[in-house]
């Protein structure tokens, strides 16, 4: 617990930053709070935090601009905190290099999970390759044999579906925008958001037992998809 990193919270609402501060400190993180974009940028450049929680609605500057500035100088994970119903802003932020977002109001548990995912993704880029078999719940993916099975029974996926599943698993816990999936799977300009939605619905029918309560492929309505994180 002691070797946890430093998290910068840029949030103008004192109550929100207060409870985030308490919970993160309890988890063993070192927490910095910036109440304005300027203060946030100052703390960011001087302390080089391991992770940033950025509220988009700041009093002195648009959070998106701040995100841009931070991305220019650092690759540290940035999580966006935004209000509901701002899907366009979320997508915009993700496209500009934000790692993930969380919607207000959120539970602390949700926020912790996002932070862990962001940390893990960060480690993985440097760490060793994954195991040859991915197992979560009743889903099993054997990378070497290209085999996907549900409760031990093989399901047939098309090559595109298989690649998509791998992409989702590789980024599990993190939201992937429709555009990101299109670019990765069909190539830039290769698909549209209509077909990716139908495609994902079909993939879900193959690997989910109950599509109304998906265990693996979660939809972020208006934004994209997230592969459920088991941790």
């Amino acid at each position, binding site marked *: 617990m002691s070797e946890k990193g430093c998290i910068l919270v840029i949030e103008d609402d004192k109550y929100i930053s207060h409870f985030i501060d308490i919970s993160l400190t309890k988890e063993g993180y070192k927490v910095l709070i910036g109440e304005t974009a300027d203060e946030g940028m100052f703390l960011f450049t001087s302390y080089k935090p391991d992770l940033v929680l950025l509220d988009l609605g700041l009093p002195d500057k648009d959070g998106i601009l701040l995100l841009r500035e931070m991305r220019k100088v650092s690759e540290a994970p940035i999580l966006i905190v935004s209000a509901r119903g701002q899907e366009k802003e979320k997508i915009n932020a993700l496209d500009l290099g934000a790692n993930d977002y969380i919607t207000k109001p959120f539970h602390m548990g949700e926020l912790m999970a996002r932070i862990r995912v962001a940390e893990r993704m960060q480690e993985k880029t440097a760490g060793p390759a994954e195991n040859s078999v991915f197992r979560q719940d009743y889903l099993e993916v054997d990378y070497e044999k290209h085999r996907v099975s549900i409760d031990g029974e093989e399901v047939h996926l098309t090559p595109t579906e298989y690649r998509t599943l791998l992409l989702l698993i590789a980024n599990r816990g993190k939201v992937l925008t429709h555009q990101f999936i299109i670019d990765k799977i069909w190539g830039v300009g290769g698909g549209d958001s209509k077909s990716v939605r139908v495609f994902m619905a079909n993939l879900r029918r193959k690997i989910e037992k*109950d599509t109304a309560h998906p265990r693996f492929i979660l939809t972020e309505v208006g934004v994209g998809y997230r592969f459920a994180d088991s941790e």
Partner: protein
Amino acid sequence: MKKKVMIRNMGKTLGVLAVATVLALLMDFLKVGNESVIMVFLLGVLFTAVLTSSRGWAIFVAVLSVMLFNFFFTIPLYTFLVYKPSDFTLLVFYLVTAIVAGTITSRLQSEIELSERNEHTAVTLYKVSSAFLAESDEQGIISSGEKLLAENTGLKAKVFLGNPELKAEEGTVLYDIGSTSGRIGRVLVSGGRPDELQDLIIRAVCSQMGTALEREKLVTEREEIRLAMEKERQRSMLLRSIGHDLRSPLTALSGAGSLLSDNYDRLTDAERQKLAKDVSEESVWLTDLVENIMNMTRINESHLLLNKEYEVIDDVVAEAVKHTERLFQGRSIQVDLPDEVLAAEMDGKLIAQVIVNLLENAARHAPADSSIRIQVRKENQSIAVSVMDSGTGVPNEIRGRLFQKYVTQDTGIADGRKGLGLGLAICRAIVEAHGGTISYDDNVPKGSVFTFTIPMEDNA
């Protein structure tokens, strides 16, 4: 214009004269007396006066006919001389009579013509003034004005509203459309310079158009004011009911919060945990309330802004179910999805909100052990989503008003929390904005079924 009339009148006059002369010669040949022959010429003068409506031409014929008579019929023949005194007096009296008769006839004739024209003008003006009464929008007024101008003047007219930069080019004339608040538009008339009558008609049309447009503007403004007032009324109703509904959870929240902070040491662990849990649950409820209020204001403002994307219905249903699962502690929501992937253009967040509201309703009104089912199916070219419960159903009294704002079921809610009565009204507004329908049915054997549809894009 003048020249043409002149030439035409000249033709008429000469024609009349020629006919009269031939007739006179014929009569002379038949040995009819000079006194009778000259009557033919008198007739000629009268005809000329009628045909040309001009005194000048009548006099011209009178003088000329005297000379012709003199030439052809008085002795010595074929000269302009007169020997007989009787012929001379005949000629003099004829001339006087012809001039007087011609003058009177021509004046009468032109008066008849004038009154005919006046009558025509009056009829036209009446048509002009009544034409705009039936028009109820700006475009209608403009097009009927242009039509009127074209029909009654034969000139081409084009109406421009506002204050455009227009120049009267060769062969075009500009007229202003005025109203009490100054010029509100202009009419560009092309196809020739309008004469007096056309000018009169154009001016009349312009002024009637100005009045009609102004009236139209006033009606629109009044309607806008009425709508704004209605909106204001709804808004204050919304605010009142929000205020009312916010008070109780806020009381609970602040009570639990202050109890925790002030008496922390005196509370047992279990009590503290219970209070904290209350705070958290109560705030979730508040969050939902705020979400609904936000949607409601979105609906009230500018006729609901839809953020449409192509969504698979599975995703939307799953989102709604995820959001409401905590309401159904222990109870399961059964979801029937068709094998076919159904998708349509929709605002995913809002449609999810519809399902959430229906599920919340079901959770509120159905007994704790009842089951809740969501059924999705394809119906004609629409996606139909039904939310079914086996609760008490909807009482007959409020069925007809079910989807209206602020309708709530007053009885049978244990904790006294009523909700805003906005849920179903929001559902209806959202579904209708998508071009779908929402309806209620009884479930068998008991309970209720709410079904809404969203049209799928016709790809065929």
